[in-house]
C-alpha cells in the first residue's frame, strides 16, 4: 500500500528523456568546450574590447533616435493589425467557451475550432522574417513589408495564446455561468475576463516588445529601423556602433517592460 505506484513510470520517463537527449545533442553539435579554446577567446576579447566606449556623437545619436522611432512605429502598426486577426480568431478557437466541451461531448463546433487553429498554425509557422522576405519582393524595400510581416505572424501567435490563456484560467467561474445557462460572451466577460484580463493584457504588451525586437530583425532584410543600422555596424565589425545600438535596444525593451508593469498595475 505504501509503495509508490508512480515510481516505475517516473524512472521510465527519465530513461526515455535521456535516450532522446543523446541524438539531439549530437545533431546540434553541442560541444560548448570549444568556446574556451585559446584562439576563440582571443577573437572574442578583441571584438569585445572594441565595444567600449560606445559611439555617442550627436549625429549618430540623432540617427539612432530616428531609427528607434521607426522601429517602434513598425512594431506598433504591425501589432495593431495583428490584433484585428487575433481577437476574433481566439474567440473562435477556444474550447473554454464551448458548451459541448463542458459536457465532455465535443459538438460539431470543434471542427470550426480546429480549422481556425490550423489557419493560426500556418500564419505563425512561417517566421516573420520569411514573410518579410516575401513582402519585400512584392512591395519593395521599406516599412510596409515589415508591418505586414509582423501583422500576419503575430496575428497567428496572439490568436493562439489568447485562446490558451482563456483555457488555462480557473474554469469554475466560467463553467458555472455556462452551466447556469449563461451566454458565451457573458460567460467570457464575467467568468474568464476578470481572472484573465491582466494576463491577456500583459501578454499583449509583452508581444509588443517582441514586435519591437522583430522589427529590429526585419531591418536585416531591409525593412528599416535599428536592425538595418545594426546589420551595417556588425558587417563592418564596428564594435563601438554595435554596442551603442545594443544599449539602445536594451533601453527600449526595458522601457516597454516598465510600461507593461505600469499598465497592469492600473488594471488590478
Amino acid at each position, binding site marked *: 500500500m505504501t509503495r509508490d505506484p508512480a515510481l516505475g513510470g517516473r524512472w521510465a520517463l527519465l530513461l526515455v528523456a535521456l535516450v532522446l537527449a543523446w541524438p539531439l545533442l549530437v545533431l546540434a553539435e553541442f560541444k560548448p568546450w570549444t568556446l574556451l579554446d585559446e584562439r576563440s577567446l582571443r577573437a572574442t576579447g578583441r571584438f569585445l574590447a572594441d565595444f567600449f566606449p560606445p559611439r555617442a556623437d550627436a549625429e549618430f545619436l540623432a540617427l539612432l533616435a530616428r531609427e528607434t522611432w521607426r522601429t517602434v512605429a513598425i512594431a506598433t502598426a504591425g501589432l495593431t493589425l495583428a490584433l484585428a486577426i487575433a481577437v476574433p480568431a481566439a474567440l473562435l478557437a477556444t474550447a473554454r467557451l464551448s*458548451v*459541448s466541451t*463542458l*459536457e*465532455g*461531448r465535443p*459538438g460539431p463546433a470543434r471542427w470550426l475550432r480546429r480549422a481556425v487553429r490550423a489557419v493560426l498554425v500556418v500564419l505563425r509557422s512561417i517566421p516573420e522574417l520569411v514573410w518579410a522576405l516575401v513582402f519585400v519582393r512584392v512591395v519593395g524595400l521599406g516599412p510596409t513589408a515589415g508591418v505586414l510581416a509582423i501583422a500576419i505572424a503575430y496575428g497567428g501567435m496572439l490568436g493562439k495564446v489568447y485562446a490558451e490563456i482563456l483555457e488555462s484560467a*480557473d474554469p*469554475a*467561474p466560467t*463553467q*458555472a*455561468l*455556462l*452551466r*447556469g*445557462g*449563461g*451566454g458565451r*460572451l*457573458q*460567460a467570457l*466577460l*464575467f*467568468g474568464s475576463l*476578470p*481572472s484573465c484580463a491582466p494576463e491577456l493584457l500583459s501578454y499583449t504588451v509583452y508581444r509588443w516588445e517582441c514586435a519591437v525586437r522583430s522589427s529590429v530583425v526585419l531591418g536585416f532584410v531591409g525593412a528599416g529601423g535599428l536592425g538595418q543600422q545594426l546589420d551595417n555596424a556588425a558587417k563592418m565589425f564596428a564594435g563601438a556602433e554595435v554596442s551603442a545600438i545594443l544599449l539602445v535596444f536594451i533601453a527600449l525593451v526595458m522601457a516597454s517592460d516598465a510600461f507593461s508593469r505600469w499598465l497592469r498595475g492600473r488594471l*488590478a
Partner: protein
Amino acid sequence: MIRLGSADAAALGGAAPVLHGIDLALAAGEQIAVIGASGAGKTTLLSLLALMQAPLAGRLELDGTDPWAQSRSERQRLRAGIALAPQQPPLPPRQRVAVAVLAARLPGMSLARSLRTLWSPPDAPLAQAALEQLGVADKLWQRVDRLSGGERQRVGLARLLVSDARLWLADEPLAALDPARAEMALTALRRNAAERGAALVCSLHQVDLALKHFPRVVALRAGRIVFDGPPGGIDEDLLDELYRSQDESAPELAPLPQPVPLPQAMCR
C-alpha cells in the same frame, strides 16, 4: 420534475463510477436533504442533477425528456432553470460581492445589461435584499477575497436566492457557518424556495438540521441510496451504518492505530 432511473455516474473530473443505480424522483417545489458520509457521492449526485455531466448509465429525465438527448443549445436553455451553489463558492477574486451575486441572474439578462452590471450593477438592491436574509448585507460592496470563510459561503448562497431557477442545489451550504447563521441560512433557502415554487436539494453533514428542517431525506452510502423518505424513518441504526467506516478491513474507530512514530532521525 427531475427523475433519475438506475443511474451510474463518475465524480466530476474522474472516470470510474462512484454512484451506482441511483433512483430518485423530485417533484416541483419539493425540498430534500441529502446526507451521507464524506466521499459517499453527495457532490457527484448534485452534479448529475445540475446537468454538469451525463450519467454513465441509466436515465435522467427533466420534465419527462432526457436533456442529454437534446441539442446543445436546448440543454443550455434548460440549465438556466437550475442553480447550483458548490461546496467551495466559485467566486472570482477581486470581483465585488454585488457583481458576484448578480452573476447568477446572467441567464436571463441581455448583453447590454450584463455590461452595465460589470460597470455598476443596477440590480444592487436585489443582491442587497438577498444578502440581508443571510446576514451579510454590510458586505455588498466588499471584494470577494476580503471576506471571512463564512461570509464567502453566504455570498455563494445569495446567488441561489437571486436566481430565477426552478431547481436550487446547495452542496453543504452550512459547512462554514456557526449554528445561528446556519439556521438563518437554511430558513432563508427553504422559505424563498417555497415562495418561488422552486425545488431545493441540500447536501448536509448536520444530520440534526437535516432531520429537523426537511420533509424528505435521502441517505447515500458508498454511492448507493440506502434511505429515501420522511425524517421519521431514520433511526440510530441507520445513522450508524451510514457513517460507519466504509472500508470494512480498516479498523473501527475504537482501536486507534498507534500514534505516528517519529524516529529521531526524522525530527531534524
